[in-house]
């Protein structure tokens, strides 16, 4: 009796050409110039980043670009202790939701240069950019965010303001 076959490996490879979409394209072009562009919803007036061309809350297209600060408030976070497949970020690292000043939605990014026991919601942070010559059409032009020496922001209040906007 021969060994049972329990698994075969079938390597499959498919190539895709991704399309960013009109709104994302403008966002990425902005990053190339060191600018973070959001879009203002014509209806609720709130600012979305990164915008995908629509305000999902109002169900309308967004076209009005708004340049945002590279400082913001970290509202929540996790400390990732395991490696991410395909990523060269070494654990443990902090992945966080950051409300950039002028934006009404959180952006997901890394927070570094802070001791892990000092991480707390409401912390003020600022983008740490790569050297300008390394900038591409990518959010990775911002290596990560670093703490800013400013008083903490009340996250509950921040959330309430946007929810009721």
């Amino acid at each position, binding site marked *: 009796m021969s060994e049972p076959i329990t698994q075969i490996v079938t390597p499959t490879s498919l190539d*895709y*050409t991704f399309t960013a979409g*009109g709104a994302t394209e403008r966002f990425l072009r902005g990053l190339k110039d060191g600018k973070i562009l959001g879009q203002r919803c014509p209806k609720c007036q709130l600012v979305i980043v990164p915008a995908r061309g629509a305000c999902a809350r109002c169900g309308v297209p967004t076209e009005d670009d708004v340049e945002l600060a590279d400082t913001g408030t970290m509202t929540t976070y996790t400390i990732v202790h395991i490696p991410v497949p395909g990523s060269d970020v070494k654990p443990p690292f902090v992945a966080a939701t950051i409300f950039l000043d002028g934006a009404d939605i959180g952006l997901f990014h890394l927070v570094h240069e802070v001791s892990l026991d000092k991480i707390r919601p409401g912390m003020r942070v600022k983008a740490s950019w790569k050297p300008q010559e390394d900038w591409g059409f990518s959010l990775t032009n911002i290596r990560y965010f670093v703490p800013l020496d400013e008083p903490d922001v009340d996250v509950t209040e921040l959330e309430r303001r946007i929810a009721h906007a």
Partner: protein
Amino acid sequence: MRDVAVISFAQAKNVRDAGAVNEVEIIMPVVAEAIAQSGLARSEIDFTCSGSSDYLQGAPFAFVMALDGAGAWPPISESHVEMDAAWALYESWVKIQSGHADSALIYGFSKASSGKLREVLNLQLDPYCVAPLGIDSVSLAALQARALLEKSAYSEKDFAEVAVRNRANAKNNPKAQLAGDYSVDEILAEPCLVSPLRKHDCAPISDGASVIVIAAGDIARRVCKRPAWIRGIDHRIEPHSLGARDLTVSASTRLAAEKAGVNQGPIDIAELHAPFTHQELILRDALQLKDDVEINPSGGALAGNPMMTAGLSRIGEAASRIISGQANRGVAHATSGPCLQQNLVCVLEGE
């Protein structure tokens, strides 16, 4: 059964490559157009259902992002099939029949230009024994076409005639991707792409989106002068194993047609989701369509085939001709899987 009708249909222009737009940007204007045309407000539509495939975009949860363009706030009652959106329409019709909804918005979309469709569709096959062989979708269809030529009285000339008619019909369809005047001889003079299929025998690869709004009895009558009533809708699947079925006939279409009551009245028009010319011949026979039936006035899938929504578009194309009064009773068809494995048949009628 409750009376349910198609009251609105909109679609994006079928194009080979929609370029720098994402799913939301493709869907949003079409959803807006279909809703505006329906006479209902977004908040008056009880149920939403979509059809799409992650493998077209090459990203898991492609349909999740699409929701941004579908008007999902405040929260909506919503579902999604990883099938052609014609099946999303079926799910919605069932939802209305069950009394859980009185109206529904159905959409499907494709950005097939992102990947290589012929290779992508290989992954639909039995993952252990067939997919590893690496056969592509056009080659499988060619296998079927060859079997048809061998077994039936159809010839390659018949295939070419199907292409000529669909391309010519597409000239009247502003959303068509391929249209024009060709002759049978011209087409037959072309080399084969995958023998016995020529380029003109195959549907193009398309980006696109289409949207339909359906509603039950009184609502449909209130908002639409001449709703396209769904008199019957049924779908059936056949064995996946290609060796287990006769590829030259479509048993599942025949059965679905019988259940949907296709031949319980005269048919004026048929919109058939046949991505290959020979498949239109097989479907015509399975549906037992008479010679006077106008087939694919839109140009059919040969004029534009956005995967996962081309079937829904067939229902929309047939319905819009009924709504406009051009036709009275029509049949629409959608297909899924290799060599017409799964088929849906929908009978639509004016009042």
